[in-house]
């Protein structure tokens, strides 16, 4: 980092700072933003992975009780929780699970197919950890959130013509002006969204660091004591060990809430005197993830956690998830977050493009960067195809394909060749993937669960193919 002369203006020094910080995190930021944008549809991807499962928005208490009884009888291995997920979660299916296994439940309350969300989990892990070891990965990704704040501030201060250029866009040319204009227009107008995503994204990893400091300073190193200040502590119970009266608890719950808002319930510490049932219930019109209702084993109401109406701090912390993932206002909210998320992804890509185009020299980076940009979507599609076709680990196939495409890019002539060829590769891979998908799932490939992902995917592939053809 070159030392700047004293007389250099704030905007020039801000630009230098912006460039340095941008280069530091560019590739990671791109992967995080792209995977995060796609992951807005994580619930839809879960349905898409098993499109043949019957779907319904209705359920009965008898169905839930029967499924729990069957599950508890079939899986006797140690578990700390049982869960039952309702259509209020955003997926119109019923799922009974413990800490290790999950089964869908049919209309009669019988356990059917095992739930598998392998590809969706790979996508989520890429966004949350970049597939690094969990704790380190999450802290690193959160660090990128903090640096996104730095990039927002430095970007705004580096832009002396922020008002003058507010609607300026010069397309074509050698690509430098169009990249600069695209980067700046998207960045400036999207600032509220970018700040929101940066702060809420940083929360997931940094909260753990803050909790450690607070627990060491004020609670003698007891992290749980800190969590208990924010998240309602588990009730202290003295009761006989008996199967939980789920039906009794649900009947009481439905007198307090609208049953369509029920997300899931958890049975904590099953088979112990501490056993209790906790219902997670959506609060319509609120970002708070849920309001929680606790019941003892006999199905008697104990308390409400207060995430909806309690302390403001609790409400804020319990609201981060929905705000970050766009999990509010149904599909319109998701579409909004996908568009805005894609804008942030384009900002990450164009930032590095600008730096590369401004350089007076060129090297392997000029080929590797477009390979990463256009190779990542191809790697995601290839990982899904390999997973559905031959059950290959999506994480492994994603990285093998991405690294392979980057190596291949080094053999091409120019940045434009890499871009065009990888756009074509993405289109072809997507078409192949769709063939694999329909071959594997047959008639179920035409269900809503499948088509709501596959039709947009096909349209993106066609547009990308057309764009490559036009570039040719």
């Amino acid at each position, binding site marked *: *980092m070159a*030392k*700047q002369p004293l007389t250099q203006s704030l905007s020039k*020094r801000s630009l230098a700072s*912006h460039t340095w*910080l941008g280069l530091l995190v560019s590739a990671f930021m791109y992967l995080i933003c792209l995977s995060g944008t796609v992951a807005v549809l994580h619930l839809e991807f879960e349905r898409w992975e098993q499109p043949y499962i019957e779907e319904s928005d209705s359920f009965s208490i008898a169905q839930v009780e029967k499924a729990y009884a069957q599950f508890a009888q079939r899986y006797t291995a140690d578990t700390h929780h049982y869960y039952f997920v309702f259509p209020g979660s955003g997926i119109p299916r019923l799922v009974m699970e413990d800490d290790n296994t999950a089964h869908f439940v049919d209309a009669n309350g019988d356990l059917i197919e095992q739930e598998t969300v392998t590809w969706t989990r790979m996508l989520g892990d890429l966004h949350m950890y970049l597939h690094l070891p969990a704790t380190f990965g999450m*802290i690193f990704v959160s660090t990128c959130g*903090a*640096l996104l*704040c*730095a990039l*927002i*501030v*430095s970007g705004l*201060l580096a832009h002396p013509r922020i008002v003058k250029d*507010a*609607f*300026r*866009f*010069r*397309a*074509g*040319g050698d*690509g430098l002006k169009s990249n600069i204009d695209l980067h700046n*227009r*998207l960045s400036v*107008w*999207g600032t509220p*969204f970018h700040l929101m995503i940066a*702060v809420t994204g*940083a*929360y997931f990893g*940094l909260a753990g*660091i*803050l909790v450690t*400091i*607070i627990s060491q*300073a*004020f609670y003698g190193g007891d992290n749980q004591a*800190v969590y208990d*200040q924010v998240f309602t502590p588990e009730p202290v119970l003295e009761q006989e060990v008996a199967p939980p009266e789920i039906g009794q608890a649900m009947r009481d719950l439905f007198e307090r809430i609208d049953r369509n808002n029920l997300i899931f319930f958890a049975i904590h510490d099953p088979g112990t005197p501490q056993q209790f049932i906790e219902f997670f219930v959506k609060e319509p*019109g*609120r*970002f708070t993830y849920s309001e929680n209702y606790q019941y003892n084993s006999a199905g008697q109401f104990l308390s409400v956690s207060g995430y909806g109406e309690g*302390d403001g*701090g609790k409400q*804020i912390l319990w609201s*981060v998830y929905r*705000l970050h993932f766009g999990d*509010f*206002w149904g599909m319109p*909210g998701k579409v*909004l977050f996908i568009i*805005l998320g894609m804008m942030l992804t384009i900002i990450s890509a164009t930032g590095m493009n600008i730096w590369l185009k401004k*350089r007076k*020299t*060129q*090297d392997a980076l000029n080929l590797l960067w477009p390979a990463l940009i256009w190779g990542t979507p191809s790697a995601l599609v290839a990982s899904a195809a390999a997973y559905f076709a031959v059950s290959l680990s999506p994480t492994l196939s994603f990285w093998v394909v991405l690294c392979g495409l980057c190596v291949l890019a080094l053999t091409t002539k120019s*940045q*434009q060749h890499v871009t065009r060829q990888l756009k074509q590769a993405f289109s072809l891979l997507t078409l192949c993937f769709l063939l694999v998908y329909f071959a594997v799932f047959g008639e179920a490939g035409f269900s809503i669960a499948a088509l709501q992902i596959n039709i947009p995917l096909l349209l993106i592939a066609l547009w990308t193919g057309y764009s490559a053809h036009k570039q040719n």
Partner: protein
Amino acid sequence: MTTTLFVSVALSALACYAIYIGWATQKKRWAYAGWAGIAVSIVAWCNVLGTEFGITVGLCLPAIMVWLGIARHAKAEKTKPDADKPPHQWQCQGKAVALTGWHILYVLIVQMVTFSLIVVALVYQLPISEPKQMATGVIILPLVWGVLAYWYVMSEHKLRHILFSVVLAAVAALYLFGVAHG
């Protein structure tokens, strides 16, 4: 619901277009009307979706709507191929690599630790409930860290910046693990 939703979308679009007209014609009254329109559209969104969702959508939507104006004003030049540039000569200078390595380490690790300590010590001085103190901490930590990372990278007096941050962090640690810890 549908009518008010349509009205809110229309208000957001019209407000952005008014800002665009103000920019394109250099007439400030259009721009002011546009910004006022944004404020009104946020109220309209709150009316449709509730305060929390309404503010979020109302603030985020202009990022999309302004493209009506940007697209209208866009100028296209003939596409040129990439210029053939000479190859970059990488020179491995030990001191420069070490210095850059230190800057990365400082921004990613040292600042995370120092500002975490400073932010916790600061928010625990606020006369609000403990959950609110924690929520304030997790919101302001990335902002403080981000702004000071920018300041550090931009600064010509990096040593002064490091000393300032470390001393502040030491005072915060002394308070947290000395005074507050008892």
